[in-house]
C-alpha cells in the first residue's frame, strides 16, 4: 500500500484515532463557526477563544473522514498559544502546501515545497495533494477557522 502510506502518515492516523482539543468552548468569550463540505458531507465546528491577539484556547468537533478530522485536530495543536499574525502565517503556509499548481491539471501534482517549513507535524498532510479530491477534506477545518476570525472583526 505504498501510495496510501503517503496519504495516511502515522501521525495523521494518530490524530484521527485520538483527536486533540475535541469539544466546545463557551461563546462568548469564544467565537464559533461551522464548516460543511456539501459534496462529501463532512462537517466541522471550530470554537476559538482569542484574547489580546493570542489564541488562548481552541476546540473542534466534527464528523467526517480521517483527513478532515485529523487536519482539524493538528490545526488546533499547531495554533494554540500563537498570536493572530503567527496563525495567519501558518494558515498561509498550509494553504500553499495544499494548493496544486496549474500543472496538476496535466495529471501531476506539484507543491510549493519552499514554503512548507515551519509547519511541523502539519507537513505530514503534504501527501494529500497527490489525491486532489481529498484536498477539500484537509482544508475544511482551516476554512472554518478563518470564518471564526471573520466573526472577530
Amino acid at each position, binding site marked *: *500500500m505504498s*501510495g*496510501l502510506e503517503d*496519504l*495516511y502518515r502515522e501521525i495523521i*492516523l494518530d490524530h484521527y484515532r485520538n483527536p486533540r482539543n475535541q469539544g466546545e468552548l463557551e461563546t462568548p468569550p469564544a467565537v464559533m463557526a461551522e464548516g460543511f463540505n456539501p*459534496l*462529501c*458531507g*463532512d*462537517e466541522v465546528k471550530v470554537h476559538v477563544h482569542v484574547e489580546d491577539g493570542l489564541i488562548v484556547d481552541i476546540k473542534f468537533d466534527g*464528523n*467526517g*473522514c*480521517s*483527513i478532515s478530522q485529523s487536519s482539524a485536530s493538528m490545526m488546533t495543536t499547531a495554533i494554540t498559544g500563537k498570536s493572530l499574525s503567527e496563525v495567519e502565517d501558518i494558515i498561509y503556509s498550509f494553504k500553499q502546501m495544499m494548493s496544486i499548481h496549474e500543472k496538476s491539471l496535466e495529471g501531476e501534482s506539484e507543491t510549493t515545497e519552499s514554503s512548507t517549513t515551519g509547519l511541523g507535524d502539519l507537513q505530514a498532510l503534504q501527501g494529500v495533494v497527490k*489525491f486532489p479530491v*481529498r484536498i477539500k*477534506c484537509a482544508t475544511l477545518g482551516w476554512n472554518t477557522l478563518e470564518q471564526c476570525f471573520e466573526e472577530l472583526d
Partner: protein
Amino acid sequence: MSFDVSAIKKDFPLLSREENNDSLIYLDTAATSQKPQQVLDVVDSYYQEINANVHRGAYRLAEKATTAMENAREKVSDFIKSERSEEIIFTKNATESINLVARSWGEANLSEGDVVLLSSLEHHANIVPWHQLAESKGIEVRWIPLTESGLFDLTDLDRLLEGVKLVAVSGASNVLGTIPPVRILADAAHDVGALCLVDASQYVPHRPTDIEELGCDFLAFTGHKMCGPTGIGVLWGRSELLDQMPPFLGGGEMILDVTQEGFTVNTIPWKFEAGTPPIAEIVGLGAAIDYLESIGMSNVLEHEKTLTSYALRTLTERLGDDLVIHGPDDVSVRGGVFSMAYQDIHPHDVSQVLDDRGICVRAGHHCAKPLMKLLGVGATVRASLYLYNDEADVDALADALDATGEFFSQ
C-alpha cells in the same frame, strides 16, 4: 454456465488494463458503465466513414448519417418494446429527459396545488425538476415512504394519491438496489387519473424492459450506464401525450416553419430534438444495444441475480457485524447495488484504501441526499455490479474491506 464473464471482460479495454500492476476491478457501474470495444469501433467508423449532419441533406453521406441515426432510434424502440419509434426522444442524459417532462408536460398540465408523488429513494434528477415546478407553479411534491429494509411502504397509498397528477419513481434504486413495484404504482396512478413516469436509468441497463408490462407513460434512461457513450439520453413517452405537449427547447429540426412572426412545430420525435442531435452518440447507443442484445438481457439479469446473491452471502459471511448493507436482502426485489457502512470508517477512507487495491467504488451521497437523510448517514460506500463483474471481483472487495479494517486499526 453459458454466460462467460471472462470473455465479456475482454470486450472492455479498460477492464483488461493493468493499473498499478493489478488489473482494475470496476464496481461503479451505477455511476457509469465501461464501454465495450464494439461500441467504440462503431462510433469511430461513424466519424471515419459517414459523418455528416442529419436530415435535409440531399447528398448520400447525409442520407447515410440520417439512416444510421434513425436506425438507432428503431433499435432503442425495440429494446424497450415500444411499437412506435417516434416515441423515442433523444436527449443528452436521463436528467434532461425528466426535465423535458417537467418543463413541457408539467408546465402545460400542472397548476398550483397539484401533487407530484415521488418516492423517498429518488435520484436528484427525479427530485429537483419537481422542486423547480414547486417554486415556479406552486405544485406540491409528496413522498412515498420506505420500509426499514428499503422497500416502498404502500400502506397509505390511497391517501398519498390524493390530488396526484403524476407519480414519478425510479425503476431501480441507484443507492439501495431496490426494485420498486412500478406496475402497481402505474395502475394506481391511472386509477386516479394521474400519469406515471419511470426513471429507468438503473433499470434498462440491467434487465429486459417492456414498457407495456411496466405500464408507465414516460420512461427516462441514459446511455452511459448501459455500455453506450456519454452525452446521450432517452425519453420514451406515449405518442398521444407527446403529440399534445408543447415543445421544450427551440431551434432547428423541431420546427416546420419559422417566420419573423412565429413558428409552427414539427411532429414527434423531432419536435423535442432542437438543434444538431448527438448523432455519433445515438449511433453509439444503437451499438451498445446491439452488444447487450448479443448477450441477451435475460442472461444479463440472471447473471446479476446470481452474483448479487453471491455478494450478499460473501460479504455478510466474511465481514459480519463490521459491515452494514443498506437496502433489501431479497434478490427478487433488488439489483446489484450495495450501499455499505464499514465499521466506523468514513466512506471516503474506505474507498481510498479500496482504490489502492485497484477497486473502484463510490463514496458519497450518490445524488440522493433525501434518502441519505432517511438512512441517517452523510455518505455510504457503494459497490455496483454489471455483466462484466464476477465472483472474483466480489471476493476482492471482501478482501479489501478486511484490509481496510486492519489498516485503520493498526
